[in-house]
């Protein structure tokens, strides 16, 4: 299989900070690949380097076999990009934004008309195409931008936080478009997200990126398997002490943690072990109020590899982010 994107030891350093700190990955053609991590982890910087908007400090980055330091215009012809922040001219109509794009990519008149019609239909914006983009809702803008990224039939599509700030229903729609593109048209897609469910639902493979480094990379299911089974949470009313003493002697309990009235256990085939757990609770006199069995989520994976939840990181980062922006606009 051919390689669509190759990144080796990529580093992007600014005066004071290191945004990308030596990451490597390879994406085969046709894959739907995700970069998962909190804001400020280096996802967008990586995308911007691959999309020829930033120069790497060092390392190798190739798209469709073309280096980002090589023939940049040839590379640009192979890709479509949907940026994290809106990149529309809101003083133009939706259709005019698409026409501008098609002409920048050198499409002829007949081809332009045909493809603009197609992508408008794909994102269901035919009726709104002749409104000024400033009248669009957030979800419509996003759909228009995705449509725009497809006009030139890119080999590789970059989606930077494609559903950031959208409502649940619109997110679902956009996920469906993304899937359809990947499955039916074979477009290689690399997307960044800090939504666990998005990465889990969409991506063939996910790289978890934290503070400029990739800490884990595999298919979502494999990443979750790495944690070693299911999570069983017991809400214990009284008597957790004796119960835990007994559980410590059982080799099928891989990890155990008691926090805030909740006993969290990691084990393989949790569904089969619950009856046994109930028995042990009865024998030791522990009173269980509720049992919860779930597969580990990518959130648990992130916690496992970084020691923090993604939300904890976001809070810190957001505080800095708002400070910087407040300064800029003020």
């Amino acid at each position, binding site marked *: 299989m051919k390689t669509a994107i190759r990144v080796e030891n990529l580093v992007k350093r600014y005066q004071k900070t290191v945004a990308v700190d030596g990451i490597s990955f390879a994406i085969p053609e046709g894959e739907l690949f995700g970069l998962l991590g909190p804001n400020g982890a280096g996802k967008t910087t990586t995308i911007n380097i691959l999309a020829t908007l930033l120069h790497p400090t060092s390392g190798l980055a190739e798209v469709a076999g073309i280096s980002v330091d090589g023939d940049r215009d040839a590379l640009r012809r192979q890709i479509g990009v949907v940026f994290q922040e809106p990149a*529309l001219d809101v003083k*133009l109509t939706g259709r005019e934004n698409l026409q501008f794009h098609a*002409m*920048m990519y050198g499409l002829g008149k007949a081809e332009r008309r045909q493809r603009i019609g197609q992508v408008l239909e794909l994102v269901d914006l035919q009726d709104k195409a002749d409104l000024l983009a400033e009248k669009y809702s957030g979800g419509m803008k996003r759909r228009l931008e995705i449509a725009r990224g497809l006009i030139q039939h890119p080999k590789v599509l970059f989606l930077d936080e494609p559903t950031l700030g959208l409502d649940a229903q619109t997110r679902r729609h956009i996920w469906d478009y993304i899937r359809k593109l990947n499955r039916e048209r074979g477009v290689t897609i690399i997307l960044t997200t800090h939504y666990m469910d998005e990465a889990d639902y969409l991506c063939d493979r996910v790289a978890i990126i934290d503070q400029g480094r990739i800490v884990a990379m595999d298919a979502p299911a494999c990443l979750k398997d790495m944690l070693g089974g299911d999570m069983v949470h017991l809400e214990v009313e009284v008597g957790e002490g004796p119960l835990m003493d007994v559980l410590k002697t059982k080799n099928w309990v891989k990890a155990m943690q008691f926090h805030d009235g909740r006993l969290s256990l990691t084990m393989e085939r949790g569904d089969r072990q619950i009856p046994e757990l109930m028995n042990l609770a009865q024998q030791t006199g522990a009173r269980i109020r509720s049992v919860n069995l779930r597969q580990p989520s990518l959130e648990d994976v992130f916690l496992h590899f970084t020691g923090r939840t993604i939300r904890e990181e976001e809070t810190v980062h957001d505080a800095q982010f708002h400070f910087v922006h407040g300064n800029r606009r003020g």
Partner: protein
Amino acid sequence: MKSVQGIAIYVLWLRELKRLLRAKSRLMGTLLMPLFFLAFLGMGFQRTAIPGVPPGMAYSVFLTPGILGMSILFSSTFAGLSVIWDREFGFLKEIMVAPVNRISIVLGRIAGGITTSLFQALAILAISLILGFRPRQWIMLLPGFLFMVLISVTFIGLGLAFASRMRDMQGFNLVMNFVIFPIFFLSGALFPLNSFPAWVRFISRFDPLTYGVDGLRAALLGKSDLPLLLDLGILSACALLSVLIGSWLFENSEYV
């Protein structure tokens, strides 16, 4: 490699034109300031003999080419600086990831800038013709037009150079107050330079607009400090230099 991509230049130009025609308030705003200058300065100094104005020439006539130069100075610098807006609103990224070489992007922006800028200048010229201004010879409007284009190119390049070095909008006011206004006042657009102290005249020789305004006066009034061709030569050199510097800085700036 560095071939110019005509369709890209055209669509970048088209975008500027559409934006201009849709921003009616911006259009009115940029027309009003030069017209106020023309009307109030012209009327205010109507009966005053201004030293240095050629004998027998009304001050309002002397002023008209200066106001044309001023209008082009402001609108062209603004067109160059508008890259900052595109960066702020994200649209610059859409332009920069397209497979269009950077020189075509710069040329598209210059084409758009010249159009919006000259649109305003010609509107002012039309109004001053209605108010009674007459060029020495109608045919001399053609070299006058050439000077307007060259002034425009010079200051679009300058705006582009500044925009490439700016991270946010705050720099905009700095450029306006510390660069554009001095360029305006030093150019002799409002008053004849030969009535200024020698050191001011010396500095004004480094101001490209000096040659633009003087060239416009040479063409439209037939009275100027320097010969028309000398003005044309110096201003052309300024335009070329400014575009080269502007595009070089633009190409080598980071877009995000």
